[in-house]
């Protein structure tokens, strides 16, 4: 027992590094593995002084009793976790699955689109649709060939997979929007699209499907604190309504989301984030200097 939480933490049982910024953590949590459904997320605190950050569940394995998170090291917390989270270490807090699970309906042909942060989280959706018998077209965006991961996993549940790279080093040269256009040209009967990624990317993707008249679901990732509907920090504008992404979402109608508002709100703590990162980098540098000196 460590403190008032009474919890000894949540064990990391596997780690994989996809690139120098993207890493995977598999965490033991049998109850959560049993409960998790596509589209849900968790909130993680890596240590007792840490912040609570939401991460979409990228995979869950009931047999192994584990959930998998794929994390991009972008800010202080995720970079620090990249250093400290090793197999056998514990996460201080892990709560979930949170959010309303995605409605994986009976659509016969679907587009599952993931890019950036959203590449891994689109996997459970693609698998879910595939299990429901849909024809699944995956569209994944990466900066370049060497950043591609989980290609096999996606091929396993997608009937077609379109890879897009910014530099053209693999698949289509261009963004996921280009990949989506390609898919839509080939298939006139796509009933639904699911897009997960950074707001700009979801916005671009939703624009493509709006033109094509395809129903579109996006998964939003605003800044969160509790994840239980108690603080309103995660509020998003959907049409003329304000919703709390953590309990009303995270999935929303991609054609109604105000992405500019989301982008703006994500920058709320940009200054502080910079301070924290700078301070942390400095402390790492000092530690390293001490270590080698």
């Amino acid at each position, binding site marked *: 027992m460590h*403190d*008032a*939480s*009474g*919890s000894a933490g*949540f064990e990391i049982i596997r780690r994989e590094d996809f690139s120098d910024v993207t890493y995977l953590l598999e965490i033991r949590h049998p*109850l*959560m593995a049993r*409960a998790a459904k596509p589209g*849900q997320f968790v909130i993680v*605190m890596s240590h007792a*002084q*840490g*912040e*609570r950050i939401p991460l979409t569940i990228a995979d869950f394995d009931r047999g192994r009793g584990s959930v998998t998170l794929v994390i991009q090291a972008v800010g*202080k*917390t995720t970079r620090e976790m990249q250093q400290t989270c090793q197999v056998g270490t514990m996460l*201080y*807090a*892990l*709560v*979930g*699955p*949170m*959010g*309303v699970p995605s409605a994986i309906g009976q659509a016969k042909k679907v587009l599952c689109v993931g890019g950036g942060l959203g590449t891994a989280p689109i996997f459970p959706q693609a698998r879910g649709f595939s299990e429901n018998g849909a024809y699944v077209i995956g569209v994944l965006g990466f900066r370049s060939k060497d950043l591609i991961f989980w290609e096999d996993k996606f091929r396993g549940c997608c009937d077609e997979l379109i890879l897009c790279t910014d530099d053209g080093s693999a698949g289509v040269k261009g963004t996921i929007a280009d990949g989506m256009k390609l898919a839509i040209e080939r298939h006139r009967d796509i009933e639904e699209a699911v897009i997960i990624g950074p707001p700009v990317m979801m916005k671009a993707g939703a624009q493509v499907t709006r033109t094509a008249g395809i129903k579109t679901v996006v998964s939003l990732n605003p800044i969160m*604190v*509790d*994840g*239980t*509907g*108690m*603080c*309103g*920090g995660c*509020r998003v*504008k959907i049409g003329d309504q*304000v919703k*709390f992404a953590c*309990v*009303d979402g995270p999935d929303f109608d991609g054609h109604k989301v105000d992405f500019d*508002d989301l982008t*703006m*709100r994500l*920058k*709320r*703590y940009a*200054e*502080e*984030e910079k*301070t*924290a990162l700078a*301070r942390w980098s400095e402390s790492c540098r000092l530690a390293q200097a001490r270590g080698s000196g």
Partner: protein
Amino acid sequence: MAKKRTIRTIPQQRTPVREQDPRERVRNFAEVNCGYTRQEAATEAERCLFCPDPACVAGCPVNIDIPGFIREIGAQDFRAAYEVIGRANLLPAVCGRVCPQESQCEGVCVVGDTLEPVAIGRLERFVGDLAIKEGWASIPYIEPNGFKIGIVGSGPAGIACAADMAKAGCAVTVYEAFHQPGGVLRYGIPDFRLPNEVIDAEIENLRKLGVRFECNTLVGRLFTIEQMIDELGFDAVFIGTGAGYPSMLGIPGDCLNRVLSANELLTRCNLMRAKDFPDYDTPLPLGRRVAVIGAGNTAMDAMRVCLRLGAERVFCVYRRTKAEAPARAEEIHHAEEEGIEFHWLTAPVEILPDEKGGVGAMRCIRMELGAPDASGRARPVPVPGSEHELAVDQVVFAIGTNANPIIGQTSKLRLDRRGYIEADESMATSMAGVFAGGDIVTGAATVIEAMGAGRRAARSMKEYLGIRDDGTASLGEAERGGMLFGIDHRERNFARIRLA
């Protein structure tokens, strides 16, 4: 007692309590009210008239035997005082600090008709603090009865229900979504009003009673209420998940950066310790001129936190007057002392952006009180042509909460029109074996009411499970009187009812 006390013979002045100087305290998070010393408590105890039919007991939502414990303080038997309180209230150190005494016990105190009422709250807190310091919490002998009870939410309602069920011999597990237990006591009410150590001590006492706390557990999503009964083997469940879900302002600009709910501000500051950023990772940048909308306890807490985090000016914007402000009198008083600027009879109309998506100013309108509305309170109506701008760069809203939707989304429990869980007087919900109480049933209320509901639910749970409660179950409602929520020491003697 030698001579009978009368209103003329008792000390005429309320014993003052030492408080941190306002100029000093706005720069720290240490407690404002420093509490009575033994001597001060004994002096204040001399002001109680020991009315034969004490109004204060009836005015207390859990009917603490107030003259009874004050008598013990007078006799300097503080431990006995603690035991008297403990029969009705588990958390005296908490309630003495946060109850709205002026509208409960102290509001009906007979001394108050002529002089200032007896400082019941301060006395209660004194006893509670001393008990924590001296480690008095009595751990009774408990005979396990094999029943398994699940409690959802670790706020005052959940805690109260958990304690009673544990004392009755049940194996109790409390599930909490946050990483720390305590509910609003932990994440909402700031340290300068209720230090974390007090909550820790109370939680520790529960642990000693055998209550297990499972934090990081979002019930409804990790497992449902139905699964708790059907699969996890709980014989009964209590839901005390609180209100949550802050109401939005619904005016243009309410999603701007630099507009946040008091709940978010307080959670970041209290639970996540943003006040210690960057030693703690959670940030909470605030403007220099902050407008807080609302005048309840939450609003007062938010304003005073802003001051302590360095705001230069903090404005309270409330559409009614000070007389209607729902906050505890002491909090408004402290806020005034600390320099909060009150704009009564003022409502926000629009929040204007600055060039970076933050707040540039807030447009407000003057109000006047009109005819009473459905709630019986005078309805504020806008004064035409009174719109004006308030120069602020941060807006915090604390205008109430709606029902938290998670349990409703994930169970078949019947909800009321507004989405709160439906429960009858015995706190039973529409599902057999499932009870609910606190803010998730009533909407935002008070700590003591939530605790009262938790205890009422515990009593019903025991009845439902057939746990005999010798002290109370056989007595009529009237005879129970002040013991309504009291735990009788004989309780431990019930027979083992079910083989585990």
